[in-house]
């Protein structure tokens, strides 16, 4: 529980640094899109944000911790999921960071609707996958 709170406080602090420092919303979706917009000087901050984000893993290791991940999803499903996440966050203008943290923190109704929608869609998806898995109708790997 404390790890989750500490992590959340750090994420909020990171968002605060970017907002009060340079007036930008720390949304991963806009960072993703900005990767393809090097020519636009006003979006170049995203490259430096992305560099910091990606280097957090080795930095965490330098601090003496070992991050863990568990993925058992098969390759076709990984690709479908990645496409859905990339496509959906683009047309929805945000994800867990932009809508979920910053938008909710700004008390934006639009972001609230988006956040409730994607969390609910995620919960339904997991429930459906678990149903198929336990009933062994198809061999979906969780």
């Amino acid at each position, binding site marked *: 529980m404390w790890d989750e709170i500490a992590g959340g406080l750090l994420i909020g602090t990171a968002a605060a640094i970017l907002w009060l420092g340079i007036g930008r919303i720390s949304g991963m979706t806009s960072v993703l899109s900005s990767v393809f917009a090097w020519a636009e000087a006003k979006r170049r901050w995203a490259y430096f944000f992305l560099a910091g984000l990606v280097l957090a893993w080795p930095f965490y290791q330098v601090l003496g911790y070992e991050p863990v991940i568990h993925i058992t999803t098969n390759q076709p499903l990984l690709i479908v999921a990645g496409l859905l996440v*990339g*496509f959906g966050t683009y047309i929805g203008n945000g994800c867990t960071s932009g809508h979920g943290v910053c938008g909710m923190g700004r008390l934006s109704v639009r972001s609230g609707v988006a956040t409730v929608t994607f969390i609910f869609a995620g919960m339904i998806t997991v429930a459906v996958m678990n149903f198929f898995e336990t009933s062994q109708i198809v061999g979906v790997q969780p």
Partner: protein
Amino acid sequence: MKMLISFLSGLVFGLGLLISGMNDPQKVRGFLDIFGAWQPELIAVMGAAVVVFFVAYRFGLTRKQPVFSDVFHTPVLTQINIRLVMGAVLFGVGWGLVGLCPGPALVDVFSFDASVMWFVAAMLVGNRLAHYFVGPTK
């Protein structure tokens, strides 16, 4: 200075994702598994982050401009429309399938795990497909 602030923010953001365990797809799917073995702990991550940003944003409203820039780039979109909801649904389904959303997926790149690489590559393709076939929100 803007570059340094951006880098620092990204680094702290990434550490937050790692410490909270939000970067582990299995944990995220446990959080989404509300009808099964639900692990609600990750609510605390979003809760704590929202509270901190709420305070920071309120403080920002009392300032004319950010410390190292001329203007606060406040999001201008307020509409709730089918595009927003469709986007959130598609994202939510993809999120549930694997347990990765964009931030954690990018943080996990240095694991060099093949699954993460496939997911990130597909995510970038999905972003560009939406860009070319749907286009930015006006």
